[in-house]
């Protein structure tokens, strides 16, 4: 694919860039392996790719924070390795975790960066009000940065990089762990600057819908460029190969989708509003075992669909990563088949921290073998609800029954039935994979041959054996998550709680994750999960949307979807619905406050 803006000089040019890391006592990692691309001036260029593709390394090289082993890297016409300081004088860079000074206020953080960049008082007078307006941080100027929510912190980080107009803005996964509302706001800020001021932006992202909105896309995989061009160039790769299957009554989209992933002529499949959306392979894959998509879709009505960026992206990845990434899972002792038994019953649950009500009279039921999704912006009360369900935090008021046991009065017996995977990696980083599993097995009271059998099961099911003797803290992201899940399943719980398990994970890892979850649910394990990826709500049987401690909407994903603002022309996505529901509730809340 040729440079889309042939006439416009590129702001960032790389030629055959190599960078290798050598961690102590571990094999070397080739982070960049001959990367060549150009980022055109005056537009958004996205770097997309799975974990470990080399996105962050590339960003740091461009910012002059790392030195390449070989190859050329020119930013704004300057060789970065020769004069990194000149680059750092002229560009702005927002690392994955922007280093805000948490004990400084919002205004003090911005002032610091304005001082460092030498922004004159006149320029500040002109720029500050605009920054405050864009980020909506105006009312919080004197609040300490450490006291801001995750989304607000990201916006403040962005404001700090925008105290003056940089010649190039580098954003390294600016929306990781940010809820859909804040994500949309961050995007509006960046878009506006690109459109009105001709700002040049290079951003890396794990969200494919974000890449789709950029002018130029570079797909990275294991340190190599798979493709580059306009998003539509990537989307076109899957042209004529995308289909939607309308399932006969009684079939579960999630189950059909996970079967389809096994078929040799299918490279990707996702549940989509009760239907299944899938991409056919260019040629049958040798590694898949199934007998063809037609088999899995008996009785379904299949029709062609418009490809999306994600479909093209997955096709690209499948060309190089054909091995079965999305492995399944089988329990030693499948639980009783799915029935109407309620295993989690929450009624009028309340949790107060002093005067603050974190969870405000919420109610929902989850049936055996179902997947229940809890969605909501940062600070909605999801994690607090989770902790109460797991018996980690006592409830202030209300009813709470898990697996037949009253969690409020018999926490220990309830806990024996549930597994919990925390948002942050909470295993022992210094212990090896095997040692961690051994410790958690003992902690769950497993002993002797039973313990050995369970650990062997976990190693096999989660393909951890190859890494058994590596320290857990140094595992790649995807493996850490597998290990955390393996540890939570050692005692064969009936219910599995997962708190933002896919935050920061790439599309391939997310497919693999949901594959396992689907398999677990099929075998009777009840799953309760929180997520920021709205498309993932499609995997759930039921979802609840929370904000400010209350459940705003609860139901099947397709029901929730239709709560979106239907005036818009296109069919509402889950994200549209989520934003509409939360915003509607916040408006009502405000008008109530005004009325009172």
């Amino acid at each position, binding site marked *: 694919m040729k440079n889309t803006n042939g006439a416009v000089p590129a702001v960032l040019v790389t030629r055959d860039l190599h960078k290798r890391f050598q961690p102590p006592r571990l094999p070397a990692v080739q982070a960049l392996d001959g990367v060549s691309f150009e980022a055109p001036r005056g537009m958004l260029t996205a770097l997309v790719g799975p974990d470990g593709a080399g996105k962050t390394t590339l960003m740091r090289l461009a*910012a*002059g*924070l790392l030195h390449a082993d070989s190859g050329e890297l020119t930013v704004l016409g300057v060789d970065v390795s020769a004069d990194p300081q000149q680059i*750092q004088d002229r560009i702005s*860079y927002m*690392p994955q975790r922007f*280093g805000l*000074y948490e004990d400084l206020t919002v205004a003090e953080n911005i002032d610091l960066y304005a001082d460092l960049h030498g922004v004159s008082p006149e320029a500040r007078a002109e720029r500050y009000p605009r920054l405050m307006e864009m980020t909506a941080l105006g009312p919080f100027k004197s609040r300490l940065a450490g006291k801001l929510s995750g989304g607000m912190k990201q916006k403040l980080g962005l404001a700090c990089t925008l105290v003056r107009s940089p010649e190039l803005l580098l954003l390294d996964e600016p929306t990781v762990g940010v809820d859909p509302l804040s994500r949309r706001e961050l995007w509006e800020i960046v878009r506006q600057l690109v459109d009105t001021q001709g700002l040049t932006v290079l951003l890396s992202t794990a969200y494919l819908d974000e890449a789709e909105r950029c002018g130029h896309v570079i797909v990275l995989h294991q340190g190599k460029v798979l493709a580059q061009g306009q998003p539509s160039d990537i989307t076109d790769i899957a042209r004529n190969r995308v289909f939607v299957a309308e399932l006969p009554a009684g079939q579960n989209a999630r189950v059909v989708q996970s079967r389809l992933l096994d078929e040799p002529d299918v490279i990707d499949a996702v549940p989509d509003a009760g239907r299944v959306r899938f991409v056919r392979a260019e040629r049958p894959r040798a590694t898949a075992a199934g007998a063809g998509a037609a088999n899995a879709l008996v009785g379904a009505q299949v029709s062609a669909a418009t490809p999306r960026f994600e479909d093209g992206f997955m096709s690209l990845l499948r060309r190089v990563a054909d091995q079965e990434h999305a492995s399944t899972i089988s329990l030693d002792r499948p639980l009783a088949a799915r029935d109407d038994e309620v295993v989690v019953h929450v009624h009028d649950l309340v949790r107060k921290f002093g005067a603050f009500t974190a969870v405000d009279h919420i109610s929902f039921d989850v049936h055996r073998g179902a997947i229940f999704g809890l969605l909501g912006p940062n600070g909605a009360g999801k994690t607090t609800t989770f902790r109460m369900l797991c018996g980690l935090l006592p409830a202030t008021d209300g009813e709470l029954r898990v697996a037949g046991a009253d969690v409020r009065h018999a926490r220990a017996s309830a806990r024996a039935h549930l597994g919990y995977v925390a948002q942050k990696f909470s295993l022992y980083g210094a212990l090896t994979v095997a040692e961690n599993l051994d410790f958690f097995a003992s902690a769950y009271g497993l002993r002797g041959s039973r313990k050995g059998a369970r650990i062997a099961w976990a190693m096999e099911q989660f393909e951890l054996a190859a890494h058994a003797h590596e320290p857990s803290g140094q595992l790649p992201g995807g493996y850490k998550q597998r290990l955390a899940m393996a540890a939570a399943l050692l005692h064969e719980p009936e219910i599995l709680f997962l708190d933002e398990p896919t935050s920061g994970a790439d599309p391939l890892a997310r497919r693999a994750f949901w594959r396992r979850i689907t398999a677990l649910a099929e075998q009777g394990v009840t799953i309760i999960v929180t997520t920021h990826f709205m498309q993932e709500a499609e995997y759930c049987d039921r979802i609840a949307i929370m904000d400010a401690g209350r459940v705003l909407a609860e139901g099947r994903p397709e029901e929730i979807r239709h709560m979106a603002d239907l005036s818009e022309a296109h069919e509402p996505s889950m994200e549209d619905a989520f934003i509409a529901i939360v915003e509607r509730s916040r408006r009502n809340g405000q008008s109530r406050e005004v009325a009172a």
Partner: protein
Amino acid sequence: MSAGTWRDKARRVRALMVKETRQVIRDPSSIAIGVVLPMILILLFGYGLSLDVKNVPVAVVVEDPGPAARELVAGFQLSPYFHAQITHAMQPAEKLMLERSVDAIVRIPADFERRVNSGSAEVQVLLHGGDANRARIIQGYVQGAIQAWNARQAAEGKTMTGAGGSVTVQQRLWFNDANESRYFLVPGLIVLVMTLIGALLTAMVMAREWERGTLESLFVTPVRSDEILLGKTLPYFLLGLIGLALCIVAAKYLFHVPLRGTLPVLLGASTLYVLVALGIGLLISSAVKNQMVASQLAMLATFMPALMLSGFLFDLRSMPAPIRLITYVLPARYYVTLLQTIFLAGNVWRVIVPNMLVLAGMAALLGLGSRAATRKRLD
């Protein structure tokens, strides 16, 4: 771009200093290490920790009811150095000694009076040897008490040659006439406070920047690495001077330690030492980018040696030669010598100049070292 001019440089350093100062003021742990800890140390060392031995619990076994013995007992009872418990038999006294309720037993035998009169009286002194140093000091005190009694007897005309002999030992210590241990503890304390603020605090705040990822954002701005170092150094240098002022005021007005040298010399020596400590702190944090490890390393590499190997608590000359050699690389050693000289002896240039030169050399070396170690790079 005008990023290279001196005015821009000054502006950036000032911005970093303002930021750092705000952080110090808001962060309870900086205040704790910079102000509260020195205060606690001053009070603790000044009042609590004393190497003087006072109120030694002794058991005095009086087997002789005669007037000479009574007078000797009174000497023990009235002395500020002893806390005497009187018994009339050896057995209860031995029990007290075993329980370590007393550190010594002074036994006045039944024939004391008779033998005093015949000119060859004996008093038995039993010392608890658990702490040999203390035992020796107590032995001296007991001898002193008996000599005092002896002297009184002589003055009253009762000629005799008693337990301690007739020679009076006149004790005199140079530079610490009062034999007050606070005279040398307080200058030593200044070393500890300066070490804490300089090395520990700096190592921690720099490691914190690495840990929280603030440096990565800071690096991609026009700021230069020497500016980052200056912006870090100056506020903590000032904090160090505040700590120093607290110590000097406490030394002079609370504990009445004489300052025989001059204030400018004291400030000069302290400035050099704070710079050395800051350099160590910055070097540590550029090597380990983790607050926990950085603070432990700073403690082990600076505070503990300053406490034990600087000549502050333990005499350098009585150390085994290999350990004494180690002390030569410790900046605290030179600072302790300087402070003890300036406070207790005066501006003795023959001592001050070489020690200051060593500190200046160390400061320059560490400054260059941390300048080289702090690069705007992540690999």
